[in-house]
């Protein structure tokens, strides 16, 4: 029998009565060799019958009806479709030509994804999908409004965005169906790293890459221009999760201590320096400040998630500061961006090519919107260049006001919160780091672009996830959501393994004794075994096990890092 996993032993690991099989209680003498041979040998006698015995209780857990998801989806669709209708009536006094097509697409997207989740990830979180559908629909409402504007925001194309949304959902569903186990991704740690770097640097390949609006972040394939960096971020998140999780002991424990902060060893700094160089290369050669900031932020955040060492964050900040200072000094396009940020209201800077005209008109738009907004169709968001993509945030702010913007931000907050919650709940360390990293990715991207539009940060070319017009961004963010939903399903699936602060009964025999965990508010990990060999064993599990049983075998709680 090859099924040897710590999961089996964990219910029993804490029980004094089952811990020493083969040794009758009370007869131990000091000169006896340790009674425990090894954990791997004792559960190896488990037969499939034992499995059903141990997991016999599982089918009695009721799958959620997902009523909350259905209800929230209906509400989100109502907001979206109501928005389409309202935009049409306000602007032209009739339903827009594309109303039925867009509405039907949104309904189809919601229904399709809901059904897919219901069948392949029935335990998954119920808020993520409606929240994403809502922001996606709101984005299309805004793009449709700009599309219909008589003065015209050249380039806004609601139908195209709807098509991209449909494609994205199909791809996300495919990811959800193919990826039955997020831990599978761990096997592709280094492959993902290489693919991510290639994607990131691909726009620099002559002939393939092309330059739009001054940034060389696009490649042209089959007549379509795509932004490979958007996909690179997913691959790199998988790589970081796998790499940091494997090496977290070195990254956490080794190194000199200076005051309260423990610094890492110099050789462990290698990967962080490589990514730093890659981020700077993206900044310099592709002149894409947003992508380089996003990449480096993701890296530092995931490193922190895996190691819980604040010194990494400190080092990251210092490197960003140094790199940023150097870039401002050395490269004119970066210093121009900084100039447009710091002296945005200076007339000379506004009028200059590549100056702050876009930023300032976006700010005027936000000001025009005020607290309650001008209402859909009554503002002038089309006056801002790229009002439908990079500056969709200021367009929304103008027509929905601060009230609407805050609602949108809270919806994003909910998505991110569910992602972080998933990271806390999921029982394997790789999943924790990955889910935390992906949730952070959405939050960080939103922070950079909203900060840029509201002049908190220098303006960068990132897009508001799910809202801004652009197929690549939409597609990649839907894939991120698919992975999050997959991990969330894993995290919320009932398991007989003890969770954090919970206690497993000893093979169902409740009289045999427990371990009480965490009388304080910080429950301890009872039977987690984060050792690498244990997780390796997990990966080597035979795949023919039905997924239901497979998942319960994962190691019981592993904290994101060791303390």
């Amino acid at each position: 029998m090859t099924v040897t996993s710590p999961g089996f032993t964990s219910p029993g690991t804490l029980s004094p009565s089952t811990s020493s099989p083969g040794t009758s209680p009370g007869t131990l003498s000091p000169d006896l060799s340790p009674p425990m041979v090894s954990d791997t040998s004792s559960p190896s006698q488990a037969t499939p019958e034992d499995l059903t015995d141990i997991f016999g209780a599982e089918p009695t857990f009721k799958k959620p009806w997902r009523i909350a998801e259905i209800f929230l989806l209906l509400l989100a669709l109502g907001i979206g479709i109501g928005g389409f209708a309202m935009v049409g009536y306000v602007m032209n006094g009739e339903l827009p030509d594309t109303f039925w097509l867009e509405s039907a697409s949104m309904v189809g997207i919601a229904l399709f994804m809901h059904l897919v989740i219901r069948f392949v990830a029935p335990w998954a979180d119920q808020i993520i999908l409606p929240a994403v559908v809502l922001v996606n629909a709101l984005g299309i409402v805004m793009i449709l409004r700009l599309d219909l504007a008589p003065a015209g925001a050249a380039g806004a194309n609601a139908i195209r965005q709807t098509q991209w949304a449909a494609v994205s959902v199909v791809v996300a569903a495919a990811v959800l169906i193919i990826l039955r186990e997020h831990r599978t991704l761990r096997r592709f740690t280094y492959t993902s790293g290489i693919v991510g770097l290639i994607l990131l640097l691909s726009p620099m390949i002559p002939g393939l890459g092309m330059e739009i609006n001054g940034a060389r972040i696009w490649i042209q394939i089959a007549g379509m221009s795509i932004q490979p960096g958007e996909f690179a971020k997913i691959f790199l998140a998988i790589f970081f999760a796998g790499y940091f999780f494997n090496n977290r002991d070195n990254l956490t424990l080794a190194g000199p201590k200076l005051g309260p902060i423990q610094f890492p060893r110099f050789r462990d700094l290698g990967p962080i320096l490589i990514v730093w160089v890659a981020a700077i290369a993206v900044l310099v050669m592709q002149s894409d400040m947003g992508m380089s900031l996003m990449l480096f932020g993701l890296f530092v955040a995931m490193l922190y998630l895996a190691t819980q060492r604040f010194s990494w964050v400190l080092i990251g900040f210092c490197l960003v500061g140094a790199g940023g200072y150097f870039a401002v000094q050395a490269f004119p396009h970066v210093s121009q961006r900084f100039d447009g940020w710091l002296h945005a209201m200076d007339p000379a800077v506004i009028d200059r090519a590549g100056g702050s005209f876009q930023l300032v008109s976006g700010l005027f738009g936000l000001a025009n919107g005020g607290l309650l907004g001008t209402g859909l169709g009554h503002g002038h968001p089309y006056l801002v260049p790229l009002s439908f993509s990079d500056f969709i945030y200021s367009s929304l702010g103008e027509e929905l006001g601060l009230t609407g913007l805050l609602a949108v931000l809270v919806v994003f907050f909910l998505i991110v919160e569910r992602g972080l919650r998933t990271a806390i709940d999921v029982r394997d360390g790789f999943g924790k780091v990955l889910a935390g990293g992906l949730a952070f990715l959405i939050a960080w991207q939103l922070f950079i672009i909203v900060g840029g539009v509201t002049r908190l940060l220098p303006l960068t070319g990132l897009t508001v996830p799910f809202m801004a017009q652009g197929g690549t961004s939409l597609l990649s963010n839907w894939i991120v959501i698919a992975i999050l939903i997959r991990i969330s399903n894993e995290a919320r699936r009932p398991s007989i393994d003890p969770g954090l602060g919970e206690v497993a009964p000893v093979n169902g025999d409740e009289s045999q004794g427990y371990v009480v965990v965490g009388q304080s508010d910080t429950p301890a990990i009872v039977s987690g075994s984060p050792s690498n060999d244990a997780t390796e064993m997990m990966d080597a599990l035979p795949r023919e096990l039905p997924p239901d049983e497979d998942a319960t075998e994962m190691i019981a709680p592993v904290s994101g890092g060791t303390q």
Partner: protein
Amino acid sequence: MSELTFTLLRLGYLALLWIFVLIAVGVLRRDVSTRARLAGGGVRRNRNATVKPAKDTPPAPPKPTKLTVLSGSLVGTQVPLTASSILIGRAPGCTLVIDDDYASSRHARIFPQGDQWFLEDLNSTNGTFLGDQQIHGVVPLGIGTAVRIGRSVLELQG
């Protein structure tokens, strides 16, 4: 479309957005409270369980009833003492699996003989300490003596 209708629509739309947010937050709250209830139930069950071994042993005062982790990642964990030995280490098969990088996979063992409990170091890499003293082989272990394994400290309690 009249000005009034438009204003109503405009405000209604914002209200609808916030209704979505509030309902979603409501779902979250229900989720959190269900979990808290479940977790609370679990703890209650366990408290009863720890009482049980105490009942089994007659109240002879110096007799230890549990092994408590005083510091380290498992701080607060208690293992009720029964007639069998307790194996401590990082290996998942141990009775007390400690998540400590300075502990060996099978680090030490605590076992009863007669009325006395003993501590045995199982050739661990970083040693087992009784107070400040590293132990070799088997030593008797009394109530309230701190045992240090890696960065975790444990003691027997009555």
